């Protein structure tokens, strides 16, 4: 049986080198990869084609230069680094790139693609909570177009049966990720915030059943011994993502464990399963309809704040840390609502700014250290 450290090292290596993960997949299967731009792509359709869905989440500490030609300084750093990487040809080995367009920057990015791979763009219906049936039909039609375009580009046929099978594989992976997140909370003294992130990030670059198997192995290794007492504080984080690793290390240095997250890169992708339906594209459409807790998925009832408060209560957390992606308008617009709800519920909270490009973290360090001192 491998140790916790060995398994995490394997997952971290994958999370840190997606290119190698793609090359390994190609060697093994003879098939390439399809890029998945953030956020909430029905990846199961790609998985059903036999090609590897590869998350495209920018790069940590990537110096931005060429991207400035095409993006204003107030585009978020994930999009800045994706633009920089595409201009450097990093994505040229992808077979296709799929874009959802729930924010203004993604809309522009999908129209300014400079990589060699063809782009497939689809729209998430934002009327999902007020016109459920119509939204389901619309989303299904969009996903059908994605499927048909993929079939043309990849020269494969994607059957309903294959999509159903992929949905089952993804749901199993979602369940195991939820279990891992809970285990990481229970074993906060063992699993550092950066370890937790690496394990969950690796799923973006792996065939999901392989990720499932590795995470199951990891859970078994972690739970083989009783959970040591954790003496630090526990927090729930919310936002698009928490990177670079330096930021997560600041959490650890100040005795803060992440016991749950509400991140677009992490839990929002596996908080709920895709429901069963004879029509797998409709199942994926319904999953979008039922999805909650993200500023990019319109819901006038704004359930995100209560979901975070519920997570604080469920995991006995001491606070919520909102990791605000710099220049992410949708998240910024929702923040005042979150603060009011946190204050009303007596939930301690802090906001830090996330900028993937950043190489200096003094402000974040001061904020987190102070917050840890007063918790």
């Amino acid at each position, binding site marked *: 049986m491998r140790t916790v450290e060995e398994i995490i090292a394997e997952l971290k290596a994958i999370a840190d080198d997606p290119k190698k993960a793609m090359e390994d997949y190609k060697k093994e299967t003879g098939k390439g990869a399809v890029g998945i731009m953030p956020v909430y792509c029905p990846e199961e359709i790609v998985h059903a084609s036999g090609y590897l869905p590869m998350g495209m989440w920018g790069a940590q500490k990537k110096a931005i230069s060429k991207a400035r030609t095409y993006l204003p300084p107030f585009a978020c750093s994930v999009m800045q680094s994706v633009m920089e990487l595409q201009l450097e040809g990093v994505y040229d080995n992808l077979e296709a790139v799929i874009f959802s367009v729930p924010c203004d920057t993604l809309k522009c990015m999908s129209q300014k693609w400079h990589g060699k791979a063809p782009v497939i763009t689809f729209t998430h219906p934002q009327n999902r909570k007020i016109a459920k049936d119509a939204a389901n039909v619309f989303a299904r039609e969009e996903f059908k177009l994605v499927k048909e375009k993929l079939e043309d580009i990849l020269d494969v046929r994607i059957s309903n049966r294959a999509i159903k099978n992929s949905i089952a594989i993804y749901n199993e992976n979602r369940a195991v990720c939820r279990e891992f997140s809970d285990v990481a909370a229970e074993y906060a003294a063992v699993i550092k915030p950066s370890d937790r992130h690496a394990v969950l990030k690796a799923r973006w670059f792996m065939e999901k059943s392989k990720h499932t198997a590795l995470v199951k192995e990891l859970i078994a290794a972690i739970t083989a011994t009783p959970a040591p007492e954790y003496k630090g504080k526990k927090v729930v984080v919310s936002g698009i993502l928490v990177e670079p690793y330096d930021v997560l290390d600041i959490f650890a240095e100040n005795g803060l464990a992440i016991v749950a997250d509400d991140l677009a890169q992490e839990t929002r992708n596996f908080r709920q399963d895709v429901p069963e339906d004879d029509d797998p594209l409709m199942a994926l459409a319904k999953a979008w309809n039922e999805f909650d807790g993200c500023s990019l998925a319109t819901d006038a009832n704004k359930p995100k704040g209560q979901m975070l408060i519920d997570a604080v209560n469920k995991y006995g957390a001491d606070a919520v840390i909102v990791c605000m992606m*710099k220049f992410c308008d949708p998240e910024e617009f929702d923040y005042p609502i979150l603060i009011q709800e946190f204050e009303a519920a007596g939930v301690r909270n802090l906001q830090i*700014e996330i*900028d993937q490009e*950043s190489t*200096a973290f*003094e*402000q974040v360090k*001061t*904020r987190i*250290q*102070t917050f840890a*001192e*007063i918790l």
Partner: protein
Amino acid sequence: MYTLGIDIGSSSSKAVILKDGAELISSAVVQVGTGTSGPTRVMEAVFENIDLKPEDIDYTVATGYGRFSVENADKQISEISCHAKGIFYLVPTARTIIDIGGQDAKAIALNDKGNITQFYMNDKCAAGTGRFLDVMSRVLEIPLDKMGEAHFKAKEWASVSSTCTVFAESEVISQLSKGLTRESIVAGVHKSVATKACSLVRRCGDIKNDVVMCGGVAQNPGAVDAIEKELGQKITVAPNPQITGALGAALLAYEELLAK
């Protein structure tokens, strides 16, 4: 028992020695900060005219931007906690703190026990900080310590952007070329600092009295005046406002000793 608080900021280094957490034995300020000779020099200066040596110190707390680079510190504590401690010790009626240093501006809300209930600080942007005033002082050719004097001579306040130091610098140069007086631009610069600082204060919720200001910028009466006008109320400038962080660090060092 002797405790040392050392506050290494981005543009100055401060140190305070306390006896038994109450008696001020020595304090020193050197006007250069982290990454310079400041930390070494402030350590020499704080021991200069007293009968103590560094080995006589029972506990040292380092704070400020350069807190992790201080050798021989027993503990590092954030400057927000240290300023809150120092200010509450000096002004027990303080409930709101405005701390504007070389690189950071912070607003801190306290309860009646001196505990921090909320705090906000600027992001990675020099607007509204001491660095902003440094840049403007250079552009206007008015020494930093004369900016307060110039402020009160202004007949009107120029409009200066509060969003970006770089843009504000070109804005000021443009206003100089239009013939605006330097005094009115200084007042506009101070208003810009005030706007930025007060936006942080307002984010802490209802402004509770007393409002106390500390940090290097608190030594500039023009900036203090602009903040009072922006908030619409009087504020108290902490005694010796540049060393409140180091004082808080020395007080927290004493608490650490007692807790041992």
